[in-house]
């Protein structure tokens, strides 16, 4: 396996700090006592078997779970030291700072241009500035060359991989500090996966990335840190088993369960 060339410094600041987080869907206790510090301008991967709550955990960071009735989170998550679940925090403002990419590429049924301009328009950015934002965002998502002559075409006309990069451009257009990626490559072809992984490497100079992935090779390739989640007993809350620098997780895991998982004994 190949790992990221330049390791993140040990004293790199934490962008997001989670302390003692428990999460519930109604009566179902999904996550228990999760504590983790997400380093700024690094890529952190969440791995674990299906149903272990890693996507649920990811959605806590931009309070997307608020949209699911009957859910609640206990414990604290801070972004730059500020509790995002504190009263007075508007989830709408939070989601502007923390962008999200979904498993299924989800361009809106409108033109490529309008897709990218969607976020800036929500904030009332002036029309005259939009052209530049759209171009810059598409360039940063490595999609400009392919789309500069077809900006008026419907975003759904693009290939799956292009659609996912369009979604990344759409998120970049609102200049988020953090980008959450929920299995962004599981529904697209291998060539496009390569492009998106390269893209993550370029983007992490400026933003903090958290990626949920089923694919351990991908986690090893793209991430600086890896967190392994596990629901040990069906129907019970999942736990964070181990969290460390990615090479450590994959070469010398401290926990037996992590080792079993990465060597393919279950999951």
């Amino acid at each position, binding site marked *: 396996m190949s790992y990221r060339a330049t390791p993140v410094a040990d004293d790199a600041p934490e962008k997001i700090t989670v302390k003692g987080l428990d999460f519930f869907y109604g009566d179902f206790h999904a996550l228990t006592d999760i504590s983790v510090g997400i380093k700024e301008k690094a890529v952190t991967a969440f791995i674990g078997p299906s149903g272990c709550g890693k996507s649920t955990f990811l959605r806590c960071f*931009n309070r*997307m779970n608020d*949209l699911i009735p009957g859910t609640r989170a206990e414990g604290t998550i801070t972004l730059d030291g500020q509790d995002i679940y504190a009263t007075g925090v508007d989830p*709408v*403002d939070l*989601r*502007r700072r923390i*962008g*999200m990419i*979904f498993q*299924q590429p*989800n*361009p*809106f*049924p*409108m033109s490529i241009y309008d897709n990218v301009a*969607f*976020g800036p*328009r*929500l*904030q009332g950015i002036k029309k005259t500035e939009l052209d530049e934002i759209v171009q810059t965002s598409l360039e940063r998502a490595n999609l400009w060359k392919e789309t500069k002559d077809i900006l008026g075409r*419907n975003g*759904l*006309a693009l290939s799956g991989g292009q659609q996912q990069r369009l*979604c990344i451009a*759409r*998120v970049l257009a*609102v200049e988020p500090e953090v980008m959450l990626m929920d299995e962004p490559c599981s529904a697209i072809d291998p060539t496009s996966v390569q492009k998106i992984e390269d893209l993550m490497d370029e983007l992490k100079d400026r933003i903090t990335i958290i990626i949920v992935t089923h694919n351990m090779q991908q986690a090893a390739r793209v991430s600086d840190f890896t967190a392994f989640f596990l629901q040990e007993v069906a129907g019970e809350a999942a736990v964070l088993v181990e969290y460390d620098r990615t090479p450590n997780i994959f070469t010398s895991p401290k926990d037996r369960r992590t080792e079993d998982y990465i060597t393919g004994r279950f999951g």
Partner: protein
Amino acid sequence: MNKNTANAIALTLLWISAIVTVAVLGTVIIYVFVNGIAQLSPEFIFTWPEGVAAEGGIWPTIVSTLYVTALAMIIVTPIAILAAVYLAEYAVQGRLVSTIRFAADSLASVPSIVMGLFGLALFVEAAGIGFSMLSAALALSFLMLPIVMRTTEEAIRSVPKYIRWGSYGLGATKWQVVSRSVLPASMPRIVTGIILATGRAVGETAVVIYTMGQAINLPITPFDSGRPMTVHLYLLAMEGINLPAAYGTALLLMIMILAFNLGARYFLRRNRKV
């Protein structure tokens, strides 16, 4: 009876049923077409009826029909869409919402002649609007409202979750999600619902006969009375005034309604293509 015989019998029955269905529809269309086609001409469409036998054209009735339909559509569309947005997006799903939905479905199945009577009592008489485009449009809107509201609600509900989440994920407020993502994504189906309801209104007779009056008028303001094509057709045929003109009117009505339905299909298809 062996399997092959049963198969053959089933197939024959299916064939016969299909042929009967098509034949009935075909007979009606051909009958009206054969009897009405001789009438159709620019003069028939663009001139006024003349004399006791209503010779000549039917222009004022066409205008009355289009006028009242357009007016009803303008009244219905905003109310139906806002109600549907509320029901689908904002209302707490529970008994109240199910009741509203049930009421809308029931409203859609009220016989139109009852709606006409209601329109007569409420708008023509009680509100004092009199026989007019407005009275008829309001009564028609009762008929169209549940259709447009329910199709809009279904359209809104069918917008995939990932479109909403994508929108929320970019920092959209609830209203921004609804107005900028959900409604545009469901617009083709909403427009289709409006067109279908409008087609229904064009062909409606019972409601307008009570509320628009029967005088052959070219309506200008919403308070003018008039005679819609359906009522004209009814009077020409039932009182034996001018049967050929009745068939001509019928054919034109059918063509208009067909155009509405084709329009709805075209709109849906064009938007489905990317």
